[in-house]
C-alpha cells in the first residue's frame, strides 16, 4: 500500500507537467512539504513530447533534466505517478484529498534494465508518439522518464506476456497482483495544474483528419521532427513514407471558431513558425512551406522570430481560413481549398503534407472537477476567491506557452504557501 505522509500544512499539486513540476519544486525548495500527483507514469507532461521550443529552438528535455534532478534531490517532495485526484473535500488549510493509483504492475525494485520489454511480444500504439509508432506491452515510456521505471500495459495482464515479463525480471520488480489503490491524506492547499490536450482534430470535419493520412496535427508533427521520435526525425508522409517537402500549416485549426474552441490557443502561430524551421532545416532550398492564417500572433518579444521566417524565400503566408481539404487520389496529396482574403483570390493548393495547428483544450472536462472552482465557458479555471485554497496554474487557467505557464505556476506555488504558512502560524 502506498503511504503518503501529509498534514494540513502539505501542498497538493495536481498534474506533473511543466506547470505542476514547477509549482511543486518551487514550493518544496522554499521548504514546504509537497505531494505531486501525476496521471501518467512519468513526469514532464506534454512538454516532454516537444522536440524544440520557440523562439530559441532549444530542447525542452534540457529543462526537464534540470527539473527532474531537482525532484530527485528534494526530500520535501513526494511524487505519485499513475495517480489521479478523484476527491477533494474541505476548506483552505484543511482539505482531504482522495487519490486513485492505477497499477503499473512494476514496483520500486525496477532498475530499468529492460529485460521485461525484450520478453514481451504484444505491441500497442505508443501514446508518447501520439500513436505514430508502436511500443511493447512492457515499456519505458520514454528514454528520460522519471521515475525511471518500466510499465506493464494493463492489456497484457492475464496473458502469457505478463508472465514472460515477470519471469524475465531478476529483481522481483514485476508484481502481477498489484491492485488499484485509493488513498486519502490531508492537505492545506492545492495547486491545480492539469494542463491541456490537443483538440480532437477529427471534429473539424472539412479538414478530413480522420480520412486523409497526410493530414496530421501539430503535436504529431512535433514527434516526427524529434530524432527520438517515430520516424527518427525524418519529415515524411504517413501515407507512403515519402519525404514531405511541401508542407502546409493551417492555423486556428479548431481555435477562434464558434463551432469548436472559442478561444485563441496562443501558442499555435509560434509553433507553426518553429515547425517551419524543421522543414527548412530538413530540406533546405527544396522545402516549401505555406502558412494559412487569420492573424499571426507572435506575442510580445517574439516578433523577430516571425520576421525571420517571413524573410525566408520558400515560406508563404496566406491570410485565409481554409474552407476544406480534398484529396488528389493519384498522388495522395491533400488539396487545400479556400479564399485568400488579401485581394480575395480563390485557391486550390496541393501539398505533400498538411499540419493542423491544433488548439489547446483543458485536460479536465467541465463536469469532471472533484471540487468547485470558477470556470469559464472554455473550461479554464479563472482566478477567483470561489476557488478557496485551490490555485490554478499553467494551461488549466488559459492557453499559455511554456514560459507563461511556468510563470503562472510559480505564482500559484506562492499562493499555496500563503495558506499553509497561515495554518502554521495559527497552529504555532
Amino acid at each position, binding site marked *: 500500500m502506498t503511504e503518503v505522509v501529509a498534514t494540513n500544512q502539505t501542498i497538493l499539486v495536481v498534474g506533473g507537467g511543466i506547470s505542476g513540476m514547477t509549482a511543486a519544486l*518551487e514550493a518544496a525548495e*522554499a521548504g514546504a512539504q509537497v505531494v505531486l500527483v501525476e496521471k501518467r507514469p512519468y513526469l514532464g507532461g506534454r512538454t516532454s513530447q516537444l522536440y524544440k*521550443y520557440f523562439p*530559441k*529552438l532549444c*530542447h*525542452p*528535455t*534540457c*529543462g526537464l*533534466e*534540470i*527539473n527532474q*534532478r*531537482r525532484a*530527485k*534531490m*528534494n*526530500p520535501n517532495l513526494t511524487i505519485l505517478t499513475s495517480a489521479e485526484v478523484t476527491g477533494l473535500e474541505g476548506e483552505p488549510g484543511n482539505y482531504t484529498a482522495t487519490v486513485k493509483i492505477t497499477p503499473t504492475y512494476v514496483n520500486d525494485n525496477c*532498475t530499468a*534494465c529492460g529485460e521485461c520489454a525484450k520478453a514481451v511480444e504484444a505491441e500497442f500504439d505508443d501514446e508518447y508518439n501520439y500513436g505514430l509508432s508502436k511500443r511493447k506491452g512492457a515499456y*519505458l515510456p520514454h528514454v*528520460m522518464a522519471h521515475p*525511471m521505471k518500466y510499465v506493464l500495459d494493463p492489456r497484457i495482464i492475464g496473458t502469457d506476456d505478463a508472465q514472460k515479463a515477470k519471469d524475465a525480471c*531478476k*529483481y522481483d520488480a514485476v508484481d502481477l497482483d498489484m491492485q488499484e489503490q485509493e488513498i486519502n491524506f490531508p492537505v492545506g492547499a492545492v495547486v491545480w495544474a492539469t494542463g491541456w490536450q490537443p483538440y480532437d482534430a477529427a471534429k473539424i470535419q472539412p479538414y478530413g483528419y480522420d480520412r486523409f493520412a497526410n493530414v496530421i496535427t501539430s503535436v504529431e508533427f512535433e514527434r516526427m521532427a*524529434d*530524432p*527520438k521520435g517515430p520516424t527518427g526525425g525524418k519529415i515524411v508522409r504517413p501515407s507512403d513514407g515519402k519525404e514531405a517537402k511541401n508542407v502546409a500549416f493551417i492555423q486556428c485549426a479548431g481555435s477562434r471558431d*464558434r463551432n469548436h474552441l*472559442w*478561444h*485563441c490557443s*496562443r501558442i499555435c502561430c509560434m509553433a507553426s513558425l518553429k515547425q517551419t524551421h524543421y522543414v527548412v532545416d530538413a530540406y533546405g532550398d527544396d522545402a516549401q512551406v505555406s502558412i494559412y492564417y487569420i*492573424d499571426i*500572433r507572435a*506575442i*510580445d*518579444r517574439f*516578433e523577430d522570430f516571425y*520576421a525571420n521566417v517571413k524573410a525566408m524565400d520558400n515560406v508563404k503566408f496566406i*491570410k485565409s481560413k481554409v474552407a476544406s481539404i480534398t484529396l488528389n487520389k493519384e498522388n495522395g496529396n491533400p488539396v487545400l481549398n479556400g479564399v485568400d482574403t488579401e485581394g*480575395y483570390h480563390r485557391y486550390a493548393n496541393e501539398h505533400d503534407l498538411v499540419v493542423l495547428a491544433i488548439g489547446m483544450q483543458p485536460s479536465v472536462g467541465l463536469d469532471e472537477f472533484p471540487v468547485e472552482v470558477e470556470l*469559464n*465557458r*472554455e473550461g*479554464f479555471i*479563472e482566478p477567483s476567491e470561489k476557488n478557496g485554497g485551490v490555485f490554478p496554474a499553467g494551461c488549466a487557467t*488559459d492557453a499559455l506557452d511554456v514560459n*507563461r505557464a*511556468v*510563470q*503562472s*505556476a*510559480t*505564482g*500559484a*506555488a*506562492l499562493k499555496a*504557501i500563503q495558506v499553509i504558512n497561515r495554518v502554521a502560524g495559527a497552529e504555532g
Partner: protein
Amino acid sequence: MSDEKKFAAYICTGCGIGDRLDASQLENVATREGRMNVVKQHEMLCSKEGVQMIQDDIDNDGVNHIVIAACSKRAKVEAFAFPESKVAVTRANLREGVIWARPDTDEARETTQEMAEDYIRMACGEIKQMNPPQPSGQQERNPNILVVGGGITGMTAALEAAAAGYTVHLVEKEGQLGGHAAKLHKRVPFKAAPIGTPNSPDANLPMPEDTGVAEMIAAVESNDNIKVHLNSRITKTSGAPGRFSVDISTESGDTVTENIGSIIQATGFTPWDPSGLTNLHYADCPDVITQLELEELANAAGDGPIKRPSDGKEVKAVLFVQDVGQNSDKEDELPYDSGVGDLVSIKQALYFKHHNGDDCDTTICYDNLRTPGAPGEDFYRSGQKNGVIFTKADVTEVVPGDTLTVKMHDKILDEDAEVHVDLVVLDVGMVPNSGPDPYAATESLEGLSDEEREAELEAQAEEAADETSVSVESILNLTYRQGTDLPQLKWGFTDSHFICFPYETRRTGIYAAGPVRRPMDIRQAQDDAAGAAMKAIQEIELAAQGRANHPRTGDLSFPTFRREGCTQCKRCTVECPFGAIDEDEERYPQYNESRCRRCGTCMGACPVRVISFENYSVNTVGAQIKECSIPEEWDEKPRILVLACENDAYPALDQAAIAGQEISPWARVIPVRCLGSVSLSWVTDALNNGYDGIIMMGCKRGEDYQCHFVRGSAMANERMAKVGDTLESLNLEPERVVVHEVAITDIERAPALIKEMEETIEKIGLSPFKF
C-alpha cells in the same frame, strides 16, 4: 565528526553488471589500487538492504567517503543521497557508462572490463580529494524583501510576499503608488465569458472593468508587513542574498539603510515616444494622442462624452493605429510588439461606445490582431459585438485639420483608403525601465584605469540616453564588480534567457517582474509579481541554509581560494557569470556564498589553480585523469578523455546507452559542472599523461546560448584556443583536443563524436607520451 577519512567502495552487481563484468576483479582494483578501507559487493545496491548496508557502515564503522560503483549519477539519486549523514559520495558509472554502452560480445569483454576498472580507479582517486560539503557559516535568515517600483507589479509583489508572512520595503520614486495603472480609466477584463454563456451572437461578453488600483493602494498602505518609501530611490545595494544592505534615499537626501534578504525589481515601462513619426503628427497635432493620454480624457469625461483635446468637441469618430513604432526594423523604433496594445484599443473603443454613444465610429487599424487566450478572444468578440470596426490596414499618414484625415492601405481590399475622424489614438510600445546593462558597459572597460573607466561609463550613459527615451540611471546601484544593475536579455528587458525558467536571474536573489522583464498586461504582471515573490522568499530560505539556488538547487558546496597562491589577477571576479565575486580591500577575491551558483567558472578561470569546492576541484578531476590507466603504446588501446557538461552532454551519453547506442571502449567520461569550470591544467595533465584525445562537450554558445551558467561553454572554447601552444610545445597534433556543442537530444551524435576522435587517433597515431 572526527577528521579521519574512511573510504569505502560499494560495487553493485545488479542490472547485469555482475554478469558482464568480473566484479571480484573490480573489488581488487578498489582495494589494491584504489586503496579503499572497505570494499563490498551487493547484488542490488539500490535496494533497501543495499542502502542499509552502506548506512550501517557509515553509522557503525565511520565510513565517510563513499564510492558507489553502480549506475549513472542520474539514476537512483534518492537511494544514494544519505541526507542525514555528513559524507562525501561519488559514483562510478558501470551501467550506463560501461555495460549498456558496450556490446555483449566475447571480443568486447576485455575492453569493457578495462573500462569498468578505470571508472573504479577514477572514482577512488576522486573521493580521496573530496570533502563533505558544509555551509560556510556566512548565512543568515533575513525575512525582509525589497520591492523596487510601486506600480501594479510592485504592489502585487509586496502584498503577495506579505501574505506569506514576509516583511516588505516598497520603494517608489514618485510621490504616490499606482504607476501607470493608477491613471487608467478601466482595465481590460481578466476573465473570459463564464461557463453557461450561450453560443449566440447576443450573449453577454466581458466589458472593461474597474482597475482596483485604489483598493490595492489602500491594502498596501494598511498592511503592517509593508513599509512604503515614497519619493525614494535605491542609492546603494551591497552584500548578498540574506544579507543585502540597501540604502533608500528620498529626494530630499535622507537615507535609511535596511537589511534585506532578497530583491524584486518591478520598475515597469515608459511608453515609447512617437514624436519622431512626422507622418502621424503626434508632435504637432493635439488630436493625435497615445493610449495612455486617452485614459486621461476618459477620466476627465465623467458621465459625459469624451472630448478631443484641441477644441473640446465631442468625439464622433475615432481611429486607433496599432503597433505604432513596433515590430519595426527602423533604428529609432522598437523591433518587438508589446502584445497588449490591441486589447487596450478594444477597451478604449468601448469607452467611446459607452460615453459617446453607439453611433460613435470606432475603427481599429491593425496588421495582426493579438488577442490571445480565452479572455483575449472573448474581449475581441465583445468589441465586435458592440460595433467596433476592425480594419486590416497600414496607416500611412494622418493629415491634421478640423477633421483629421487618415490615409491607409486596406490590406483586404488591396486598395488605398481615407477615413475622416475627430481623434487618432496611437498604440505605442513599452520601453522597459531597466538600468544600465552591466555587460554593455564592462566589455569596453577591460584594461582601463579607474579614471578612464569612469569617463567611459559616463560617455556610455550619455550615449544610451540619446538612443532611447528612457533614463539609464541605475536602479539598484549594486556595488558588484560587474555593474550596477540586472543584466539585460534583449532590447533592455531584464528577462531570463530560459524558457523553462523565467526567473533564472543572473544576479542571485534579485528578480525582475512585470513589464521591465518582458512586455505584459496587468493580469500577467500580477501573475509575474506573485512568481517573483515566490522566488524571493525561496531565496531567503535557501540563503539561510547556505544552499545554492537554481539550477544546482540545494548544493552546499561553495568556492574558497588559497590566499597565499592567489596572484590577484582578477580573472575569477571578471568571469563569474553571476557577479558573485567582489574584491576585498587588499584586492583579493571575496566570494559571496549566497550570490554564487556553484558552477565553478571561477575555478576554470584561475590560472594558478587556487580556487576549489569541497567536493569539486582541480584535484578531484585531476585525480580522475591521473588514476585512469594508460596502456602502453604497443597495446594499441587509446584513451580518450571526455569532459562532459553534467546538464546536457552527460545525460545525452547516458540516454545513448539506455537507447542501446555503442560508445567507444577508449572513452573515459568525466562529468563537469559546466565547461566553464574546466581547468586548462586538466588538459595539459591529460596530454602529458598520454591520453590520445580530449573531447570537451558543452552546451550551445552564442546568442541563443544554452549554457545555464551563461558563458561557460563559450569561455571554455576561448580558453582552449590557448591549448594550441601546449600542443605545439609537446609536438602534438592540434586535432587531439576538440570542443563540441552537445545538446541533451544528441543521443546519436554524442557517441559519434567520440567515434570520430577514435578515427582521428587511428589516422594520426597514438600519443607518444605514454609511460
